[in-house]
């Protein structure tokens, strides 16, 4: 006896009224994409349910993949057996035994197939009795059980599940349009990307690279972070902007205290151009209110002036620790803290302005023509498509 499929439940999506079909289709597509490497695994839908048929594959690795898909409320491993009482008993016992630290359980039978000879109530008792007699130290609790063994007797077969694993919730990636994530390589921006994806947003990423001040490894780190994010969604295009010249000019020509603000404005300008080119309608950043000099209210006000594209700032009101916790959960923390310089850390002015003013910045910017360097940066953009399989040039060695 073995779990032979995974039952997928979608929560909030059920509320989406007329659009529900589109949401569910996207979810099915996303699930299919994630499990396509496992031989013979199929994703099916029947009557408001989605199933992943394991067809002989180990359930855990597939479960792990599915746990990272947005739009899923919860998942359960399930067994399908013929509509025979003895087989259902055996499967129910197996399902119960797979659960850890169980003291109490209850059985819930749904008899959708009225041809099945035993009625639901009676079947509850038959199964409950069987489970009690075959286990030790476990009792029935119908109100607050540790495990609910669910049995659905349908026309074609009976399905048995026990445990419930929480999914990530949210909406299927691909249902809310696209956003361009400013990915620096720190702790915050990957988390911001993750949270945008949670609302169904598909992302592309942009990174500002300043060799030789920042190394190849800093760039690699960004690609690695993007790859980690693909586990929660689709492949991600990463746009690497050669930023050295523009950055040098800013720090040479602009007053020290305003250099950081102006640099951020340049990043937004360039990002907006990339959006236009790629048909993207918003930016996503890891900005957080009051964290560092460039992230005060004044600073945001001044930087935001250069674009009227919506800016998604999922972290804006979070505490640092909350962000770190998510970063651990999604597996980006270890990569984020690798100690390579990025373009924001290398040119840190001695005393950046914490309350930069729009009029002053505009005045300073008007004293120098940055447009050739902006143009040059835009033209030098290298775009890499990262998928969850992107290995690197080493796959032949390994």
């Amino acid at each position: 006896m073995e779990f032979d499929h995974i039952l997928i439940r979608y929560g909030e999506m059920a509320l989406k009224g007329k659009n529900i079909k589109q949401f569910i289709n996207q979810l099915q597509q996303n699930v299919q994409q994630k499990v396509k490497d496992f031989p013979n695994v199929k994703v099916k839908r029947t009557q408001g349910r989605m199933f992943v048929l394991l067809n002989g594959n180990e359930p855990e690795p597939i479960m792990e993949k599915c746990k990272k898909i947005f739009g899923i409320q919860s998942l359960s491993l399930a067994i399908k057996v013929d509509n025979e009482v003895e087989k259902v008993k055996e499967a129910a016992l197996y399902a119960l035994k797979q659960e850890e630290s169980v003291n109490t359980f209850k059985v819930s039978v749904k008899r959708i197939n009225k041809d099945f000879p035993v009625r639901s109530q009676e079947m509850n008792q038959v199964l409950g009795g069987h489970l009690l007699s075959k286990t030790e130290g476990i009792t029935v609790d119908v109100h607050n059980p540790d495990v609910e063994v669910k049995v659905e007797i349908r026309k074609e077969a009976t399905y048995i599940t026990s445990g419930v694993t929480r999914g990530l919730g949210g909406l299927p990636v691909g249902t809310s349009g696209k956003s361009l994530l400013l990915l620096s390589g720190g702790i915050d921006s990957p988390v911001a990307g993750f949270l945008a994806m949670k609302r169904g947003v598909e992302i592309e990423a942009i990174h500002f690279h300043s060799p030789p001040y920042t190394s190849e490894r800093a760039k690699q780190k960004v690609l690695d972070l993007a790859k980690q994010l693909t586990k929660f969604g689709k492949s991600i295009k990463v746009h690497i902007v050669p930023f050295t010249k523009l950055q040098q000019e800013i720090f040479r020509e602009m007053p020290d205290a305003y250099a950081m603000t102006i640099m951020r404005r340049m990043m937004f300008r360039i990002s907006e151009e990339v959006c236009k080119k790629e048909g993207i309608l918003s930016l996503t950043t890891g900005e957080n209110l009051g964290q560092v000099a460039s992230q005060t209210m004044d600073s945001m006000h001044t930087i935001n002036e250069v674009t009227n594209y919506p800016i998604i700032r999922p972290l804006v009101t979070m505490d640092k620790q909350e962000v770190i916790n998510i970063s651990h959960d999604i597996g980006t923390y270890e990569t984020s803290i690798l100690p390579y310089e990025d373009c924001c850390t290398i040119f840190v002015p001695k005393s950046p302005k914490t309350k930069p003013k729009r009029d002053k910045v505009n005045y300073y910017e008007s004293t120098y023509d940055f447009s050739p360097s902006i143009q040059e940066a835009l033209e030098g953009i290298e775009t890499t498509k990262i998928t969850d399989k992107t290995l690197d040039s080493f796959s032949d060695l390994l």
Partner: protein
Amino acid sequence: MIYLDNSATTRPDPSVLESFNQVTTQYYGNPSSIHQFGGLAEKLLISAKTQAADLLHVDKEEIIFTSGGTEGNNIAIKGIALEHQNRGKHIITTEIEHPSIYEACEGLKKLGFEITYLPVNEQGIISLQDLKNAIREDTILISIMHVNNEVGSIQPIEAIGEIAKQHPKLFFHVDDVQGLGKVPLNLKKHGIDLCTYSGHKIHGLKGTGMLYVNRRIKLFPLFHGGSQELNLRSGTENLAGIVAMVKALRLIKEKEKNEVSKMYELQQYIIQEVKKIDCVAVNTPEKAAPHIVNISVPGVKPEVIIHMLGEKDIFISTKSACSSKLKDESKVLAACGFKADRSTSALRISLSYDNTMEEIKTFITELKWAINEFKQALE
């Protein structure tokens, strides 16, 4: 040559050696060096780690590259003991572990630790009740091998994991050097906190190994230094060896999926044929790993058989290579309850996925011949 001593070590896979050569000639930079050439080596190291983690279904931050099984076992046992000794100084293991577990535990005794060695039955399996009884308030570690290296018995790791889970204060280490690529093991599901692997048992190279360490676990490192391997194992990484091992891991995982039944067939054939030989007793239990057959020929000195077969270019071993030098008796067979006539006359045949039925048939013929010769000489 017919090589049937694959539990001692295996022939490095040619494609694995190719990777080794390529890495050691082209990517010899130090992964910790800050320049681009070092960066390339670091990138390769991370790729290798990611692949290993994917193949073992764990996170890449949970893999430590080591120099082999002995080191992995030592880091696990001593690392837990030294880090968590304030919590308790009691360790539970079995009577049939590899010497790198046994001796590490004996060493810890000198530092005031208490060790419980669980006995095994004739099938080489511990009793779960014994384990439950042995767990105390101050137990900090259970260390139990998955597949025994001499007889091939498989411990009920899943059930042991369930017991360990009920005691959140203790850690559970598994020595899976012999099981890797032959008997599946689910690290996360079975509540395993640490697990030791070796490269040269899976057609990688000597001097390579891996230790799985669940990310929530702290260990006291045995090697302090330049903070490599998450600070748990300092020392410049043996990148070529690591890449070779991870490739070997990928290859053996494929074989485990597709060819393990063929290996079981060879094993069953050996068992069935040696049973027909007068006075040969099979020590390997019925439910065993596919690659090990342990037999005894009471009254016949095993070394003589080894040398007679050796002259025919057939290589098998007595007990495990690691303890063969110690004394005549197999500790493992004695622990299984076999009397001296059997525990001092054991031979171990261990297979790889490369062995063929033809080789096995030749081996059986020559074994019969050798035993016969030996007996006639005595008469």
